């Protein structure tokens, strides 16, 4: 039942008082008097609290993409010091654009309209519910976090590339050479990788810890990418997923991808 105007005004009034309370001088003095050992200062925590979720997920709407736009790729690769070897054989990508027929081979057929087949589809690590890369990694360098992010511990990676063979989506890239000289502009806030290490998208977990959404999502001016908790009915991802048909890449493999495509 929707609240009446009277109830709404009451709630709004109480909320305003609640918001103003911490700024009242007497209360602020009380807080300053309590010992703060064990609590962290804002400078240490960063300006925003960390974003947390039960299961992070992403939705991609390639129809919203502008032709020839590569903003998401540029932002991601700048953020994470992804090298550009200027050679397709050694190509390293965390996010890239693919043709529909390559992303959804089973769903493609000769009668698809050109408006669909010509779409550039952003592809990235699917952060699978049942990730094959994690199963095969002999050193547990790749592991799944409690919030569903499939992470890489580059310190442990021995470059065996089992994960690259196991991943059905080609989301992983190998550093055949030292990548440092091939990073166009180094972002000091994120490490580079070293020779003989596999790398991939990390759903910007370092940004989530600082309370910021992933770089590709922020960079997309057309709002083709949305990010959120798929267990939270009010998240951006669920608002999109709940109202239309969404596809996942190769669901028959049972990997449980968490990047959803709306075509």
């Amino acid at each position, binding site marked *: 039942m929707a609240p009446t105007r009277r109830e709404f005004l009451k709630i709004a009034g109480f909320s305003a008082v609640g918001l103003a309370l911490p700024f009242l001088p007497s209360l602020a003095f009380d807080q300053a008097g309590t010992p703060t050992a064990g609590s962290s200062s804002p400078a240490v925590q960063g300006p925003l609290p960390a974003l947390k979720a039960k299961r992070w997920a992403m939705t991609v709407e390639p129809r919203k993409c502008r032709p020839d736009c590569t903003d998401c790729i540029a932002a991601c690769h700048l953020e994470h010091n992804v090298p550009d070897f200027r050679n397709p054989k050694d190509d390293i990508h965390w996010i890239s654009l693919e043709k529909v027929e390559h992303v959804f081979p089973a769903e493609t057929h000769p009668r698809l309209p050109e408006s669909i087949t010509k779409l550039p589809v952003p592809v990235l690590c699917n952060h699978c519910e049942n990730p094959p890369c994690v199963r095969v990694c002999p050193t547990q360098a790749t592991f799944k976090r409690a919030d569903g992010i499939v992470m890489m511990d580059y310190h442990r990676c021995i470059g065996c590339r089992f994960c690259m063979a196991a991943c059905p989506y080609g989301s992983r890239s190998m550093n055949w050479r030292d990548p440092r000289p091939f990073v166009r502009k180094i972002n*000091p806030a994120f490490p580079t990788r070293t020779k003989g290490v596999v790398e991939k998208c990390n759903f910007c977990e370092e940004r989530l*810890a600082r309370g910021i959404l992933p770089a590709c999502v922020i960079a997309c001016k057309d709002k083709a990418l949305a990010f959120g908790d798929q267990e939270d009915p009010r998240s951006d991802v669920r608002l999109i997923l709940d109202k239309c048909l969404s596809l996942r890449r190769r669901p028959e493999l049972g990997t449980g991808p968490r990047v959803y495509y709306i075509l």
Partner: protein
Amino acid sequence: MKLYNRGMVIAGIVAFLIAATFPLWYGRGKAVPPPDLKLDTPALERLKEKRCIESTTYMRASHMKLLAAWRDDVVREGKRTYTAADGRIHQISLTGTCLNCHSNKDKFCDRCHDYSGAKPACWSCHIIPEEVR
């Protein structure tokens, strides 16, 4: 028993012994000066009390263990702050926290690592802010 090429063999043995024992007698009586670590970076000058995150003795002996624990905390546990013994809270970051104060890596980290023959692999990935600028 006949020793063929006696002169060459004996000269060879002598040369080998001299070369093999070279490190023992060459440095004898000489003390290599301990590395001169510089603590005069701008960030350290600004500190009222020159204190690392833990005591100097602990940091000198166990900074590598602390860094290994930090690495696992951040990457595997997602824990990004460290509470020191005295209750201060620090951001866990090699580039951001350690090198923020010790911005003179070549006059601090490297001097001691070179002296003790330690070759940490940190810098093949982690960025030295000085080098990027």
